[in-house]
């Protein structure tokens, strides 16, 4: 539930800076191809046979295929619940589909994000007409996610050190302080952006 947001969550940042043929492809092509793969996975019953394809592509692009396979497994707990219910209801074909469809879809998304830096994906989405404000906010969230997570983790540690752990009020006060601090930080960042003559997504 409350796990630390840190190193391994930012692995895509590292992977997406590679220089393979897949990394060098235009992000618009990669985004369109990934969406097409997702649609096929959602609509075609035989798409499970394409499951090794994203992993083979990852290997060809010198990406850690086993790590991508592991990341995609994040969808399995949710999927297992509904697959289990379908299986108990006697619909095993459906149960299997409820497991492999989300997993194969997550593999394709992981491959896209491992082979393409987020800002290129966002720029491609902007070219496809996605609302610009949403993309700029996404870019900003990803930039400051680690910063605020570290701050939250330090606050947690500090509260525990003061012996104030596991109290509703302490947690609420921590979040209030964190929110006020992020608000102030946002204003400072904005002034810094103005001083540097703008910033954000190109």
């Amino acid at each position, binding site marked *: 539930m409350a796990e630390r947001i840190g190193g391994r969550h930012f692995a895509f940042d590292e992977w997406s800076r590679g220089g393979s043929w897949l990394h060098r492809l235009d992000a618009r092509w990669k985004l369109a191809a990934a969406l097409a793969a997702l649609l096929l996975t959602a609509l075609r019953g035989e798409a499970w046979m394409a499951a090794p394809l994203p992993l083979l592509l990852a290997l060809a692009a010198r990406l850690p295929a086993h790590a991508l396979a592991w990341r995609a497994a994040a969808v399995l707990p949710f999927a297992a619940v509904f697959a289990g219910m379908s299986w108990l209801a006697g619909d095993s074909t459906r149960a299997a589909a409820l497991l492999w469809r989300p997993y194969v879809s*997550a593999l394709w998304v992981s491959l896209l994000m491992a082979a393409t830096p987020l800002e290129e994906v966002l720029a491609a989405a902007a070219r496809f007409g996605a609302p610009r404000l949403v993309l700029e906010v996404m870019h900003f969230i990803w930039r400051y996610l680690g910063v605020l997570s570290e701050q939250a983790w330090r606050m947690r540690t500090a509260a525990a050190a003061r012996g104030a752990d596991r109290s509703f009020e302490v947690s609420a006060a921590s979040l209030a302080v964190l929110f006020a601090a992020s608000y102030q930080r946002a204003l400072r960042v904005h002034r810094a952006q103005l001083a540097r003559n703008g910033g954000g997504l190109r």
Partner: protein
Amino acid sequence: MHIPDGYLSPPVMGVLGAASLAGVAAAARKASQALDESRVPLMGMAGAFVFAAQMINFPVAAGASGHLLGGALLAITLGTAPAVVVMTAILAIQALLFQDGGVLALGANVFNMAMAGVAAGGWAWQAFGGPGRRRLAAFAAGSLSALAAACLALAELAASGIRIPGAALGLALGIFALTALLEGAITAAVAAALESVQPGLLGRTHGSPRRALSGLLLASLLLAAAGFLIASSLPDGLEHLAEAIGITGLERAVLAAPMPDYEAKWLGGDWLQKAGAGLLGLIVTAAVCWAAGRWISRWRSA
């Protein structure tokens, strides 16, 4: 509740995707007018805050704990339209980089959590707010926001033809109710603490509590009852509904060409019928809530 890819039927996915696209575009336009040019840092930082807030545990009973979901708190602090944009950005980041929720299902997840969830929170904050009632308003905003999002997700899964046995449905609704109460309590506690840390960050509200209270109770009861009926009548009851309305004939024409093998393997024959009836149920629910809202607002201004 983040719906992954491969769970929603094409009609459900398409309709919710279109609704989200239009809703988010409108919210983005409105947010651009509502906030000054520091809006991108403000909204981005608020989004990063919601992620970071997931690491702060709120102890409940018996060793269990929960964390802030955030939709209502964003609506209270930033206003509804900016909160819709921030929540959409959060969901997109989760889908792309955390494998939490699908990319094709993003339309549905945005509809549930960023649009319905945030709007319910923002509405409750406005309806309940007023002198001395801000804690109650924040609690209602958090609870309603979480409850609306979860019930919609469940109804969409049911409308897509996913079987949810009666016992599991009861369990799910129980968990939803607990989650909603917890989100309400967390939102109220954080809003109260925020008011003492830095007054002025909470949005202004001017509601007339007593009438809003009864109206809100009525609307939420209607929503809950309708949502429960949609979900629990699936898959059998909806077939009768579909036959009664005549979607059955329509289905064959639409289904003939594009995806001949799809229906048999994936949803067992009559998915469009079920999905159509499910969507119809959702639309009826929305219409009832809209009408109730109109009635309440007229009643309040009278």
